[in-house]
């Protein structure tokens, strides 16, 4: 700390010859501070005074019987004093300092953390549209306003903070909890069949049961109605009416699902010709500098492969290579066994979306080739819940 203070205010180390005690007492009385006073073996004294105090101390010594010898100078003011005639050097140093100070505030990397559902690319895209990108000047960014705008644009994000730490722009994100779907328990609704089938069990908790076990129903048939009739008492000839309720219950049924998938028996495949062309581009602070000359790709069909060579320390400098490889297509017969396996896998996935695998009782496959197409048909028998709640009216 003492060294830093000395460096900032500048100091002059001097030798005092004569009665040092009197000299130091006089300095103290005149308010001329000094420090690091030592007495040497030869009887002389050394001490340090600040750069600004030095002329007054020298004048004080001149008026008395002391002899002062300047030993050395140090600190920033002394350095500037020595460089007072070297304007170019001084100006260059100041320009360098200013450049370092300004460039250290330029954003070089943008780091996003805390996001799980919203991808980093989406957040970076929103930030880039508002000026937060490599090459942006940090103090020129209104981070609070940008955070508000991005939160409004991405409703999944509940909180965002942009922290500028030198050349690193750190973006902290917190995602909100998804709002649960609200069920209006008072709104009338009935339960209808999702798939056709034969009812195997029905359990009604609310509403009017309209089907019985063993009944065959089509998709969309009402299974449990929302209208409940009141039972008229004995010896009452009038109609007591009824009330609308939200039907509830569970209806299980045997269902049958038929799914089909087809694939051509012959397909096209790529064959590389061996000819390729690479174009290089330098990405500097988000801007592109193309090295290759103007001209299109001379190939009709080609694959484009991008390779990036990035600079170390997360600097926003990268060399991008675009390699275009020419290819031709040729017809090739499809292996029927592999095609059937692929189609079966696809059909199983589609069946799982219709009925949980644990409720599938039996599955049959049938494959046939016709008109250059390989068609696989899946026949599945299931026992599953078929009731879905449909609300009345709009």
């Amino acid at each position, binding site marked *: 700390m003492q060294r830093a203070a000395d460096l900032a205010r500048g100091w002059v180390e001097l030798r005092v010859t004569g009665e040092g005690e009197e000299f130091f007492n006089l300095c103290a009385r005149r308010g001329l*501070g000094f420090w690091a006073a*030592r007495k040497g073996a030869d009887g002389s004294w050394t001490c340090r005074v600040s750069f600004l105090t030095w002329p007054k101390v020298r004048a004080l010594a001149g008026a008395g019987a002391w002899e002062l010898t300047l030993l050395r100078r140090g600190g920033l003011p002394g350095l500037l004093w020595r460089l007072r005639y070297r304007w170019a050097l001084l100006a260059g140093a100041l320009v360098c300092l200013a450049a370092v100070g300004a460039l250290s505030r330029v954003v070089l990397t943008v780091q996003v953390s805390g996001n799980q559902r919203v991808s980093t690319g989406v957040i970076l895209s929103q930030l880039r549209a508002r000026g937060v990108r490599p090459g942006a000047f940090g103090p020129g960014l209104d981070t609070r306003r940008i955070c508000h705008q991005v939160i409004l644009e991405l409703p999944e994000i509940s909180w965002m903070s942009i922290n500028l730490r030198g050349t690193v722009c750190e973006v902290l994100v917190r995602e909100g909890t998804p709002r649960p779907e609200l069920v209006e328990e008072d709104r009338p609704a009935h339960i209808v069949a999702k798939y056709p089938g034969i009812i195997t069990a029905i359990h009604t908790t609310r509403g009017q049961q309209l089907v019985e076990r063993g009944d065959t129903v089509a998709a969309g048939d009402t299974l449990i109605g929302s209208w409940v009739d009141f039972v008229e008492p004995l010896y009452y000839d009038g109609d007591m009416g009824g009330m609308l309720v939200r039907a509830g219950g569970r209806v299980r049924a045997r269902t049958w699902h038929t799914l089909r998938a087809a694939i051509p028996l012959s397909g096209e495949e790529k064959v590389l010709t061996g000819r390729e062309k690479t174009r290089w581009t330098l990405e500097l602070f988000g801007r592109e500098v193309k090295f290759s000359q103007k001209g299109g790709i001379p190939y009709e069909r080609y694959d484009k492969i991008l390779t990036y060579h990035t600079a170390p320390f997360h600097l926003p400098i990268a060399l991008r290579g675009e390699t275009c490889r020419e290819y031709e297509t040729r017809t090739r017969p499809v292996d029927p066994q592999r095609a059937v396996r692929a189609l079966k896998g696809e059909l199983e996935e589609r069946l799982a979306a219709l009925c949980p695998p644990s409720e599938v009782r039996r599955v049959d496959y049938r494959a046939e080739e016709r008109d250059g197409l390989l068609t696989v048909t899946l026949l599945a028998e299931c026992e599953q819940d078929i009731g879905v709640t449909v609300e009345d009216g709009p």
Partner: protein
Amino acid sequence: MEEKPRRRGPAERVAQLFGLPADAVAGMPRLELVGDGQLRVERHRGILAYDPAEIHIGAGRLTIRVRGTGLELRAMTRQELTVTGRIVSVELE
């Protein structure tokens, strides 16, 4: 020969009588010793003698004698001074 006891000034006696801090009322020096490496003296009257082994500091009616090795007048202003080094003893006379 027995040394004559120091006579207290009126301000110092008043401060002692009323239990007031003598450094504030009577302008007595205030010494602050930090371990054996630093001595800070407030309200001094200047240096009387200086040597790396012994420093005499004037403090009104008192003379503060600091003994040690490698003593250095670290800083000095009109009101206070700081002595550093290895301080062995501080005597008042």
